[in-house]
């Protein structure tokens, strides 16, 4: 009987959780429309073109999903840390480090390619996890702001990998100007899922990561404890949570997932590591936006990531055909995030808790 009650509640609950993001998307598109108008174009025509060339033709839909793969995984990495209250904005650095390590291992580990490839994935995840643990440990031991340290580490990772692909690991065989490593072995590559496009099994990995996230968040004690720690660390500590352990696991998972994002891109799409391939595409930041828009809900992050990826694919299409810069996609997605955050407040405001005549000890203040 309780079950049916829950099922009845599901419809309105779904609507309640979707309402804010949908309104925000509408407002974001409205701002985008104004910008397009300012460029002297017809927003409706542009939007039709954009969505045609991102979702409504099979070829472009595959491009959208291909691009969405790292974004989804980055969103999960971000969500993993943020929901536990750890503001990890270094997903990009963790992804770059992990991916680079995975690529190097794939290139240099001897033995059967499939085994070496597997080891490469694991090595990449370990590297990403360790790189994420660096700011975590600094926060734990020295109370240093994770916001600053994790961001600083992005630049460090980008420059150092850039050094390696520019000098010691540069592919000398191909294009002399391209800063990239040689290609990985053919047997290591992820299979294509479509004959006409680059859509590949990386997307399935993204789906798997999402399912993993759903499992962690709703079915495990760890997920519960980390979530409570994110809501109120004092409450979690008082309830007997081992916070250092939770933080270490959370950040390690976040970094490992981040590394999967880039490794899937290398093993499924590019087959080599090229300088700036993960940073200039803003995968990590788009993933962060998706995580924020979806309020850190794994399934929500999955669909928002695909939507944002579609905006970007559509954005580059209209840049080619209409001359509107593709950053229109960035503008729209940032506006959506801003509107989501503001809308959330209106919601909270209406439901301000009614406290009674609360009396608390003034002496502690």
């Amino acid at each position: 009987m309780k079950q049916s009650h829950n099922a009845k509640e599901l419809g309105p609950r779904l609507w309640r959780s979707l309402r804010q993001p949908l309104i925000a998307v509408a407002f974001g598109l409205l701002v985008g429309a104004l910008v397009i108008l300012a460029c002297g174009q017809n927003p409706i025509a542009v939007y039709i073109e954009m969505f045609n060339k991102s979702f409504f033709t099979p070829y472009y839909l595959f491009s959208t999903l291909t691009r969405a793969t790292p974004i989804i995984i980055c969103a999960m990495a971000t969500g993993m840390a943020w929901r536990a209250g750890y503001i990890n904005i270094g997903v990009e650095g963790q992804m770059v480090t992990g991916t680079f390590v995975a690529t190097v291992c794939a290139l240099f580990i001897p033995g059967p390619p499939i085994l070496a490839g597997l080891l490469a994935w694991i090595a990449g995840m370990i590297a990403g996890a360790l790189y994420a643990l660096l700011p975590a440990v600094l926060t734990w031991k020295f109370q240093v702001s994770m916001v600053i340290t994790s961001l600083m580490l992005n630049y460090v990772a980008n420059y150092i990998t850039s050094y390696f692909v520019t000098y010691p690991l540069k592919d000398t065989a191909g294009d002399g100007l391209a800063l990239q490593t040689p290609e990985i072995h053919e047997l290591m590559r992820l299979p294509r899922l479509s004959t006409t496009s680059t859509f590949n099994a990386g997307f399935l990995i993204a789906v798997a990561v999402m399912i993993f996230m759903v499992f962690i968040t709703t079915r495990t004690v760890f997920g519960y404890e980390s979530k409570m720690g994110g809501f109120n660390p004092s409450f979690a500590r008082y309830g007997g949570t081992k916070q250092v352990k939770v933080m270490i696991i959370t950040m390690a998972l976040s970094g490992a997932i981040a590394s999967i994002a880039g490794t899937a891109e290398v093993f499924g799409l590019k087959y080599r590591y090229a300088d700036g391939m993960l940073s200039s595409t803003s995968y990590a930041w788009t993933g962060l936006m998706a995580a924020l828009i979806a309020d850190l809900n794994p399934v929500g992050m999955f669909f928002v990531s695909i939507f944002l990826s579609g905006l970007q694919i559509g954005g580059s299409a209209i840049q080619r055909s209409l001359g509107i810069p593709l950053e229109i996609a960035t503008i729209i997605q940032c506006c959506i995030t801003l509107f989501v955050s503001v809308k959330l407040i209106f919601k909270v405001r209406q439901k301000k808790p009614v406290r009674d005549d609360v009396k608390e000890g003034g002496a502690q203040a």
Partner: protein
Amino acid sequence: MKHITKVYGSLYANNDVHLTLDKGEILAVVGENGAGKSTLMKILYGLEQPTSGEIYLNGQLQHFRSPHDAINQKIGMVQQHFMLLNPCTVAENIVYGREPRKGLFFDREEAVRVTEALCEKYGLHIDPRRLVGDCPVGLQQRVEILKVLYQDADIIIFDEPSAVLTPQEVNELLRTMRKLAEMGKSLIIITHKLHEVMAVADRVMVMRLGRYIQEMPKAETSIEEMSYLMVGRRIVERQVPPRKPTGTVLDVQDLVLAGSEAKNILDHFSIHVDGGEIVGIAGVSGNGQSELIQCLTGLLQPTSGKVMLKGQDVAGKTVGEIRTAGCACIPEDRYLWGCAAKASLTETAIMAHQRSSKISRKGLLNNKGARDFTQSLLEGYDVRNSGQTQKAGELSGGNIQKLIVAREIEQHSPLLIAAEPTRGVDIGAMEFIHNKLLEKREQGDAVLLISSELTEIMSLSDRIYVIYEGRAVGEFHKADATEEGLGILMMGGKLNEAVS
């Protein structure tokens, strides 16, 4: 103030309330927690705007949009939570808002002189150069009073002024209030402590559930009549069966917690609690109670000493280990420690139960088990809610406190630490929680009650310790505990001194 109504959501905090005040009189506004006294005063002071109603001052209609407007009309307020800048000096705090200037600059020397003159005028002495954060609570309140006097207020509102004071400091405060009234100031004191009303007020106004109930001159009323009006029914004296101690559950020996300075926050603190008894710890807030709770529960690591829980030393163990060893805790600040505003009721209810076999197995949650468990708490402890997905922050203070109490009692642990278990909850919830604590005692478990409400300590405890500056300075049995005796120890005095 006429026809004042203030609505929060669907809750009438004030419903058609009237209030008059004459020059030079002390009016006491009394009522239980949640009766709407504070809201009424916030409206008078401009901190809140009334939903409807009018305020007249000397016959003139006023609109207070902010405290600034109220201050301009010579209304001042000594808030329940001190509104002080702790890292600043006493003088800086007092002159705030009307600072002496030298050209563009803030003349801090002049501020000191002004403060000294003010202290002299009203006979309230304090060192103007001292940092407010270093002052004890009684002095901080004096700064608050001086602040209001510096603003030249003719009407001074005191919001629960005695809440954080010892009985002796309260007497001092009451004397100050009488003196101010003699000097022509009009005072409003909001309180639920009726003996203070009898000691100082000229007139009494009673509020209940946001409504104006009645007012009368003090001379024509009694504590019994007021309490009847406040609560709406006669209060029956609680009949507590005699204690049946079962053997020591908690034995704290020489517990020390070093502070950042030379003084220890907890200084060789020793107490013991038996099964089947409630032991109260009385003291003025800030004498180490918070730290004591945190040391006992594992949130803080004590510097030295033993905490024997059922014969096992748990000092320095983690929160989880101590909980497993048999200690549950109703935290002193429910919004800081007891819940998370954004967590659902299920998530709130299973905290510290998450590893029990009902809720999880091998790290995997049993969501149905969690829901059933939560439902049993919600129903068993009469927590009013709109479903388990409701957020903890949306419950009223009394209801969230009942849920926390439920969660901790359902640990069925040999020791329950109850810190300020009824702070800021309505009278119904208070009685309910007190009964639950007594039930726990009847079951033969030990309850350590830490509260700044002396009446709560005295009515529930079998034995009472007094904590002063981190030391246990006295032990009383229920029969020989008096408010005066406790008060002297809470101030750091000695009993025989006071007698002689």
